[in-house]
């Protein structure tokens, strides 16, 4: 039996192309996770001890104890009041000619402090627009 060879390029139906594309599209739509990761950004200091002499008046110390109470410069404050307090301190101390803040905030949590409280304090400092935040190592004070 002789089968006549087909001439030229065979063509395929492109009618189902849209369906295939749709199927792939739906797959990628389902697998894509739009939710971007969000958070409070910090830059950690370089490793090693760097001792820089800072005048005492330029540092605000924030202690957080294990129950979540906050001591702002030896004065107990509510967490939601930190932002206001910090902002007035930044403005009081002023800025360098380069426009940098002079006031430095040193956050010192107790080692049993909950992360949640710590982050709320950090959040308050960010609300106040504090640029210079240092995190002291916790100790059992």
């Amino acid at each position, binding site marked *: 039996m002789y089968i006549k060879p087909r001439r030229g390029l065979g063509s395929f139906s492109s009618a189902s192309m849209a369906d295939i594309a749709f199927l792939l599209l739906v797959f990628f739509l389902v697998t894509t996770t739009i939710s971007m990761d969000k958070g409070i950004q910090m830059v950690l200091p370089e490793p090693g001890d760097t001792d820089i002499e800072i005048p005492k008046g330029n540092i605000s110390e924030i202690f957080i104890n294990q129950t979540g109470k906050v001591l702002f410069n030896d004065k107990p404050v509510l967490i939601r009041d930190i932002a206001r307090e910090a902002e007035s301190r930044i403005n009081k101390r002023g800025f360098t000619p380069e426009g940098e803040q002079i006031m430095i905030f040193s956050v010192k949590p107790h080692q*049993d402090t909950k992360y949640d409280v710590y982050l709320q304090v950090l959040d308050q400092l960010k609300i106040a627009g504090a640029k210079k935040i240092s995190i002291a190592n916790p100790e059992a004070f």
Partner: protein
Amino acid sequence: MHIEKKTKASNEISTSSMPDIIFMLLIFFMVTTVMREYEGLIVLVPKAKMIEKLESKRNTSYIWAAKDGTIVVDDRRINVDDLRHIMYDKMVKRPKTTVSLLADQEVSMETITDIHTELREAHALRLSYSAKRIEGEKL
């Protein structure tokens, strides 16, 4: 006076360009999709107001820290002391890496500080404390 229309416009939308549109969408999603690599732990991240988006998913590596102090990186449970080696390797591969710390609200600061120390040793200095936005609240 009644003017008769000479051409009759078809009131149907041509579907011939549909596959092209679909393909375009498909290619867009294919390019933008970053597959989720790791499952991680179930953590309840804290809420905050001043949160920022991370630049890109490709330059982000994740550290999970659960309530009981378990630390998970790349779906492997690790000791805190090993974190610096793992992070160092990551930093060598992608120097622009930002570390996203997904820590539970209840984690003690002791664990967090240990992670800080390890990250500093690995020179992974860009850190993001993963948090959720507080809804509908102005300062």
